[in-house]
């Protein structure tokens, strides 16, 4: 009996230690990355980084103003395409695509598959349909590639939060003579609004750091781009091109870009958490 008890206690302690150590590894990985980035990037980032253009090969100084604006431009395109399509797909799957429907099973499954397609493949696909026929890289092609990543994230998240809205709320609306679409638009979506918005912000944050889909689509640009049909610089691609270069000052710039990108993503994350926790009313999300 005492042996049995000691054994049970030992197992308990071993498992507690094991799970605890894994948790520490997870958290500390993030902190090591953060600390390293803040240390290296903090030294490198300065006002010039935000307001100046990159200088020529091997020159010291300059900044990545064009890449910051370019990233914003590409993400804006991606959001304009990806958020509405993803959102409405999610609404369809949750509200019209029941469990028994073959069509929505296929849509749901394809959506999951699209979510799992490697980002480099997405980039090649976007290059094939938008860059090759038009014969030049462009901000639009980059935005299109990223939107293909944003659609499945948004759709999945929207479907999940909508299907958590209690049936009683929908019935309350139907019982007053509201149509199905009116019920969705006026009751169901507002009830799930915070979750959906949080998911969208996190999705946008997730695609902001993607470089692979942009390598063959928006490419890169050392100066301001002339328009949305032109190649455009972006932070992730800048990090890539600067980090593999042989010049110390470019490495410094890459660290700065990494830090700026990370801070932007963190801000988006925190904003999303605030939205989700602040206005949430008791009982209903």
């Amino acid at each position, binding site marked *: 009996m005492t042996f049995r008890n000691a054994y049970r206690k030992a197992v308990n302690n071993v498992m507690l230690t094991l799970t605890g150590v894994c948790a520490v590894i997870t958290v500390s990985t993030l902190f090591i990355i953060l600390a390293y980035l803040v240390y290296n990037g903090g030294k490198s980032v300065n006002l010039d980084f935000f307001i100046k253009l990159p200088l020529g090969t091997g020159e010291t100084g300059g900044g990545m103003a064009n890449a910051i604006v370019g990233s914003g431009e590409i993400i804006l395109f991606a959001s304009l395409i990806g958020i509405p399509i993803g959102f409405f797909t999610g609404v369809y799957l949750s509200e019209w695509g*029941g469990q*028994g429907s073959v069509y929505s099973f296929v849509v749901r499954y394809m959506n999951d598959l699209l979510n799992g397609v490697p980002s480099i493949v997405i980039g090649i696909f976007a290059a094939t349909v938008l860059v090759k026929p038009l014969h030049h890289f462009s901000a639009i092609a980059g935005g299109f590639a990223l939107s293909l990543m944003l659609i499945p994230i948004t759709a999945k998240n929207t479907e999940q939060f909508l299907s958590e809205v*209690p049936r*009683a*709320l*929908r*019935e*309350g*609306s*139907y*019982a*007053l*003579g*509201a*149509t199905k679409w*009116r019920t969705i638009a*006026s*009751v169901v979506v*507002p*009830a799930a609004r915070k979750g959906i918005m949080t998911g969208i912000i996190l999705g946008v944050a997730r695609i902001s750091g993607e470089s692979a889909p942009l390598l063959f689509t928006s490419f890169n640009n050392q100066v301001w781009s002339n328009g949305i049909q032109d190649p455009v610089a972006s932070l992730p691609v800048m990090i890539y091109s600067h980090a593999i270069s042989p010049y110390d000052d470019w490495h410094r710039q890459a660290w700065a870009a990494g830090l700026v990108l990370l801070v932007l993503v963190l801000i988006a994350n925190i904003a999303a958490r605030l939205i989700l926790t602040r206005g949430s*009313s*008791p*009982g*209903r999300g």
Partner: protein
Amino acid sequence: MTPMRAKSAPPSTDMNDTSEAIVPDQTPSAKSHPAPQSGPVPQAAARPAEAKMQAKNVNFHYGTFKALHDISLEFPANKVTALIGPSGCGKSTFLRSLNRINDTIRGARIDGEITLDGEDILKMDVTSLRRRVGMVFQRPNPFPKSIFENVAYGIRVNGLASRSELPGIVEKSLRRAALWEEVKDKLQESANALSGGQQQRLCIARGLAVDPEVLLLDEPCSALDPIATAKIEDLLVAIKDQCTIVIVTHNMQQAARVADSTGFFLLGKLIEHDRTDVIFKNPSKKETEDYITGRFG
């Protein structure tokens, strides 16, 4: 409460055809359905015993499960009708058929005839049916909006009144639901901040705002304390001169307090329907007597 034994309990073989045989003999005028009327139906005060809604041989299936067997029942205008019976007996399913809210459930199927003012509701446009036949649910289900917006919702979705008329209608509806005094200073606050009893009265106000001809209530007090329950019962009695009320309840005292007539359901069948005092004092069926005296259910 002990029923008189003068009417001996029917032999149990009768059970299967009881539902067809039920005609409330105390209200002979309700037996004959009013001739179909053209044009707007005059408000019911003139002929209070007319059937506002009538169900004839209603059968209901959830997939392969038959939930209702051949239900025929009529609801006289401006009266409160209670539906009682043990859990799972079909009374809620039947109530939910009266505004076709069951249409939204996959695999649900209904046959038979249900009429509202003589018009078949199964052929009616479902949104206009639900505007005329309101519903209050078992658990309060206010929308996650302000108190004002909750009450205004039905008006807005049906386009029943202009924006400037809304505040007046909202106030009137809240007054009818005996909630106005408690919420008049916080109309813009979230409805979720109200207590359970207040939320349920808000849901009643929301239903009343569109001026329904019939109000269906599905165990509206089962989640509420006795004080909130008393308030809701009072308001049901107060509003019945303006609409016809059908209430499903587990609470037999509640049925006795508010209902003019009561129907007893068992295993998907309507066993008996009569004046409430007859059902409770002198039921003609043994199953009814057993249920109300607490022998089962």
